[in-house]
């Protein structure tokens, strides 16, 4: 299966190059130099606040949807705001439409680099942002399991895989450390690299502080030592321009800049990848999806940023595409029925996005339950038909090799393959 995908991609690449809207080649896979698994990189993108999967990957001709929501919270099939068609072999009767603000994602889907998994989420019905986020961060089945599972799924995976480690192996590129890294000692957070990771001292002063932290007990001591090490590593690896200052980073600048926080986060990840510091996993936040009110405009902006940032990133790391896999998801989907604030409330099934190395793109995966009343969860929400752990565990077998350690998702046994891997 893997070889057939490779043949397909090579075929595609040998023909006319796939172009993005900006005209730059979107995919420049270098299979000749295909690296070993120890250098693979998994990026987790959090659609925080719970992204409305039905407005992103929309069954546009579904009458249940049409009667439950105004057109502003759906994707149109025709007209100047029509969505990008997403042909999906498994559900030929549905006119799947990707939100019109996502041309880059549409292009990636068309070129088989990106897949969606619809009606995905946590197995238990839980409409709390914070509990659902904890469940997903820790790779748990439900809230009851949170008492037993205190650390993050990706940290557990890294700790047990044969991935290379060393350097900055796991990085959160948005503010504080992401929950899926909790408990993993080597994880680090790097909000941006415009000035590197500067210390306010000369080397001798840093040495004096290092002495204090080496003697300090507990987590503060270890955190300080890692802060000093990371500062050194970045100072040594980040390219410098004239005068010894870090060279400003111009790659894909305009497109990253337009994409807000997610653009900033993905740019940081791209710089870390290029600095070759042992990165195996990263997480980036894309917030603002909790659209209880005025969803149309906010959702449009969010999708535009998400799509633009992913397009920019994919071009930016063109030489590394064979190593980099991205998965994006929110904590749940949103309610089928719109409210009168022009928004949607907390729901159940959402959409997950997987793209890049290892992914069999060009598909909408997972069983689709439909939106008929009997198929809804509690008569109001798109049901969850694919456990989020199935998507993640399949991607992890590509990332770290098989078999996946049983304690990454404790107590979970994946059913038959989704087919997300090429």
């Amino acid at each position, binding site marked *: 299966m893997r070889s057939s995908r490779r043949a397909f991609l090579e075929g595609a690449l040998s023909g006319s190059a796939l172009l993005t809207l900006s005209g730059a080649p979107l995919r420049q896979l270098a299979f000749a130099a295909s690296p070993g698994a120890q250098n693979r990189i998994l990026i987790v993108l959090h659609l925080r606040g719970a992204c409305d999967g039905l407005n992103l990957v929309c069954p546009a001709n579904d009458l249940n949807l049409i009667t439950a929501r105004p057109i502003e919270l759906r994707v149109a099939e025709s007209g100047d705001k029509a969505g990008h068609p997403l042909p999906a072999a498994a559900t030929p009767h549905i006119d799947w439409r990707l939100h019109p603000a996502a041309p880059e994602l549409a292009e990636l889907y068309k070129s088989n680099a990106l897949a969606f998994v619809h009606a995905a989420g946590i197995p238990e019905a839980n409409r709390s942002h914070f509990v659902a986020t904890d469940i997903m961060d820790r790779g748990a089945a439900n809230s009851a399991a949170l008492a037993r599972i205190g650390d993050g799924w990706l940290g557990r995976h890294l700790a047990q895989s044969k991935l290379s480690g060393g350097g900055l192996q796991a990085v959160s590129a948005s503010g504080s450390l992401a929950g899926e890294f909790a408990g993993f000692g080597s994880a680090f957070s790097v909000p941006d690299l415009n000035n590197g990771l*500067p210390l306010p001292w000369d080397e001798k002063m840093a040495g*004096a*502080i290092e002495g204090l932290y080496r003697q300090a007990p507990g987590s503060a001591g270890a955190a300080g030592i890692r802060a000093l090490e990371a500062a050194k590593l970045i100072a040594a690896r980040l390219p410098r321009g004239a005068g010894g200052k870090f060279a400003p980073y111009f790659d894909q600048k305009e497109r990253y800049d337009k994409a807000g926080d997610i653009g900033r986060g993905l740019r940081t990840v791209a710089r870390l990848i290029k600095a070759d510091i042992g990165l195996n996993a990263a997480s980036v936040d894309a*917030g603002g999806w909790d659209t209880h009110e005025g969803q149309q405009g906010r959702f449009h902006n969010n999708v535009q940023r998400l799509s633009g940032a992913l397009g920019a990133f994919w071009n930016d790391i063109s030489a590394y595409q064979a190593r980099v896999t991205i998965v994006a998801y929110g904590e749940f989907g949103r309610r089928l029925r719109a409210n009168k604030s022009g928004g949607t409330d907390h729901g159940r099934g959402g959409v997950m996005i997987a793209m890049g190395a290892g992914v069999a793109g060009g598909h909408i995966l997972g069983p689709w339950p439909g939106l008929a009343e009997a198929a809804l969860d509690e008569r109001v929400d798109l049901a969850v038909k694919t456990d989020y752990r199935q998507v993640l565990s399949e991607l992890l077998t590509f990332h770290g090799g098989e078999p996946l350690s049983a304690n990454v998702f404790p107590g979970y046994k994946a059913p038959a393959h989704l087919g997300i891997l090429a």
Partner: protein
Amino acid sequence: MDVLDFPLSRLCYAAHSEDAIEAERAGLPAWLDRQLDARNASSPDLEGRLRSFRLQIKYAAGNGQPTPNGDTKNWPAVDEMRPFRYLEAPIDSAWALLDPKVARPNEEQSRPYQEVACATIIRAVHSRAQVFERMAGFWHDHFNVLATDDRRIGCALPMYDRDAIRAHALGNFRDMLEAVAASPAMLIYLSNASSRAGGDNENYARELLELHTLGRDAYLNDRYDRWRDVPGAAEGKPAGYIDEDVYEAARAFTGWTIENGQRLDGATELPRTGRFIYIDSWHDGYQKRILATEFAPFAPPMADGRKVLDLAAFHPATARFLCLKLCRCFVSDNPPQSLVESAAKVWLESARKPHQIAAVVKHIALSKEFAASRGSKPRSPLALAASFSRVTGIDLSPTWPLVQQLAQCGQRLFGWPSPDGRPTSAGYYVTPEYLRERWVLVARLAGNAWATGQPKAVQIHASGDAPRVGDAVERWLPRFAGPGAAAAPFFAALGMDPAQPLSDEKKLAQIAGLCAAAPQFQMT
């Protein structure tokens, strides 16, 4: 008692030397009584500082471009040091900045938020009512709103800080809950302002139960709409809440909104003042059942919402959840269950008293569990800046780069992005990334890099002799790194001879900033 030492360090942003003396002489209980009396929240000194403070405002002249609402961007360039305008003003004056018909620069529209951010720092550093200020901070985290990214919330922030948070910070929780529920800032943040009958949105109702009152442990998500299955429901005392309670509570708050130019019917348009208003025609008046309690149809104005606030505020799960959060803030990231329970008892006993919150804080601060918790909590970045300034004699006056550096350290004032509010845990603050930014914070304060105030020479070097490196290190290292910190390896690493003279005051301050990077000073 040193102002940097536990327990004052835990209860204050930065204790004053007078506080240390008073707590030592009169004892912690007596000192606390004065601190917990909200009448002491202000003082002539503090008022004077707030009055004389100036924050720069600077922008270029408008470019003359038309705006979508028919105005043009015509304004003169401004670069001035401007006093606070909005802290004490009714919301109307800040809200006027948002008039869609008048083009205004961003710098003017974000001013109300910037004023509250600066006032927060001034009060944290200079107020003698330190426990009051810490509690104001606690409540801002608990009733989080995101003011940095939404101008409407920024313009509502002075009123929110003043009338909802500070007015009740040591008072009664039920009173505070209603002040928050009816505050323009929260009505916008959790979108209740647009919620109306027949398609209400559940944003506020859900977070009211999950984050503001009963807490996530009381969310019985597996029961969804089977309210009779909730333990205690038959007696009208349900142990927790279910999704159906969220949906029904959302109906109860329909009509709680703000005056913001809404068209009520063909002819009537509300004024744009930002003030709270209850619109009965938006309210879903039919009968409801919330927390196993029947609500009769067509109750008087706001009665449905108030009844929900009563049920939530006086619920035992709320007592446990709020006391857990208070203990996490003041005692430890994983506080002893015994203390949470005894505090919850005080909470419930004083639930209808005007000084409920003060009574609970006092109970926690005087507990044996608190006394045994030395070293278990991180200093927040604001507390770090305040206490560093206090002992190095910096008469700290905030500038915008300081606000930005606090954000770099993980404390973006009024800028936490989700309604759960910022954690106070070591797991959040004492990370490699934030530690490095904390080192930058104290180093820049020591060097007065942001014009926040010069360290005082007398604090840095008390004796009249020519100062030496050794004096500075021996003065600061034990204070910031604890009495056990060995100076010799520190000198060795610095490559300096302790006897080396240091005529430069800046170098002395730099050594204070360096010593304040010690791991011990990050915790309290």
